[in-house]
């Protein structure tokens, strides 16, 4: 039982939190701008590497580097939107989607150029896990990841339900044309969606790098489960993205648990297949997702 909690449930929650942070941005951007942002994983990578500069360069603890990475990537996201997506917004959506592929490649190449291609990590050496109640082993970084994700989710909920801008964001996600004729400042809403989506992505990227190691493809490799989480939760639904992220993260980890006998149910090599499988099943049987989002 404790083995299940320590080695499957907690890692599943951690991975789920990371996917949720990525999927929030993907789903909000889709809701408002109607395009699948394929560079979102690479925004996560960028966040992870910006934090690395603060950790390795200045000597900040990782958690202190996190807010800097979030702000920098948030601003970079707005810049990327202005430079590469906004000029194509009036045309067919597919142009923006392809542009986001290009941006993904650009970010990854820039990371390789500035930070190198080697695998690295924030902290060298072995980190001992905390032991709670004599037997519950949880790594300190995992505690941080889960706790901070909860903080971000609550903050986002308050923002979306209490602030004028957050309500405007939900309104625009409901009906962008109506939002415009109603007098909502749609440009500001779009900019703030990028700020929040980019900031959350950076946090997800830093958490992913804390949990494993940094490499320039770290975020790109997470884009499939993140899209799966967004589809599972319902496209355009931020709360759905959170639930979807947690479900996908847990499903990936729990699929390796020896449910029957002593062998893992599914070999760890097939982890990413789990997310893909869930996404395909959802698209076939319930394309609006758990939270009745938009049908792609």
């Amino acid at each position, binding site marked *: 039982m404790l083995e299940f909690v320590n080695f499957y449930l907690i890692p599943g929650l951690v991975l789920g939190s990371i996917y949720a942070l990525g999927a929030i941005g993907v789903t909000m951007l889709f809701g408002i701008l109607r395009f699948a942002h394929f560079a979102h994983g690479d925004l996560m990578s960028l966040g992870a590497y910006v934090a690395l500069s603060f950790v390795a360069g200045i000597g900040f603890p990782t958690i202190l580097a996190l807010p800097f990475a979030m702000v920098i990537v948030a601003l970079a996201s707005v810049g990327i939107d202005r430079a590469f997506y906004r000029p194509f917004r009036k045309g067919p959506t597919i142009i923006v989607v392809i542009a986001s592929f290009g941006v993904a490649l650009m970010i990854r190449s820039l990371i390789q150029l500035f930070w190198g291609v080697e695998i690295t990590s924030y902290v060298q050496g072995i980190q001992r896990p905390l032991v709670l109640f004599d037997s519950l082993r949880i790594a300190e970084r995992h505690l941080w990841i889960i706790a901070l994700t909860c903080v971000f989710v609550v903050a986002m909920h308050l923002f979306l339900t209490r602030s004028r801008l957050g*309500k405007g964001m939900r*309104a625009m996600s409901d009906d962008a044309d109506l939002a415009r004729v109603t007098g909502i400042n749609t440009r500001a809403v779009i900019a703030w969606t990028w700020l929040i989506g980019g900031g959350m992505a950076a946090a997800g990227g830093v958490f992913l790098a804390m949990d494993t190691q940094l490499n320039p493809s770290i975020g790109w490799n997470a884009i499939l489960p993140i899209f799966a989480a967004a589809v599972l939760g319902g496209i355009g639904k931020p709360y759905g993205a959170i639930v979807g992220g947690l479900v996908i993260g847990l499903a990936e980890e729990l699929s390796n648990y020896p449910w029957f006998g002593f062998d893992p149910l599914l070999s760890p090599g097939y982890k990413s297949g789990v997310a893909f499988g869930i996404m395909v099943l959802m698209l076939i049987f319930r394309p609006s997702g758990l939270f009745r989002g938009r049908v792609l």
Partner: protein
Amino acid sequence: MSLLEARDLTGGYGGMDILKGLSMTIEAGAVTVIIGANGAGKSTAMKALFGLVRLNQGSVHFDGADITGAEPETLVRRGMAYVPQERNVFPNLTVEENLEMGAYTINGDLRPRLARVYDLFAILKEKRRQPAGELSGGQRQMVAVGRAMMMDPKLLMLDEPTAGLSPRVMDEMFDSVLAINDLGVGILMVEQNARQALAVADKGYVLASGSVRFEDSGAALLANPEVSESFLGG
């Protein structure tokens, strides 16, 4: 001076011109009605006044300023409010959030504005925490009109406010529109129930193929045999 003056509007969507030299004058505080056959360009004319149509030619002046091609956000600030015909509420937002969106450009306390809308449509106060998507057609229309009233506009533009409503709800909606007009708000309405609309109109425009065929007081248009025969079903 008139509240709104549109001169020689020509334009449409894509490459097609739907409006062909349309001119209109709207007086402050008046009820103005646009009628015409399907495809005459009624809705397009209203959208053109609100800057939602590509114009090749013509100009729109509102309250002393040239607003040709201005952004909706600017127009809302200046005192215009537009309620589209379909999909005119945010279904996932609550009734109250929908109303708040109408005053998006306002910094500060919205409660007095909300209270005024709830005075007009008492049922909305009861339902204020309910998502607008769950309301009946008539109540949604109230939300849409209420949202437009949040900025206390000088001109309220309604694109077929009674479309798809049952006769009883339709009468209620007409009464609400007149009640709003009594507050001093000018009304511009596109209506398919031409007789009922002209009966309350200070001024009516009859559109045909993208330009004005007749313009006169509502009563005069109702009495005009030519209008009656061609546009009011005899």
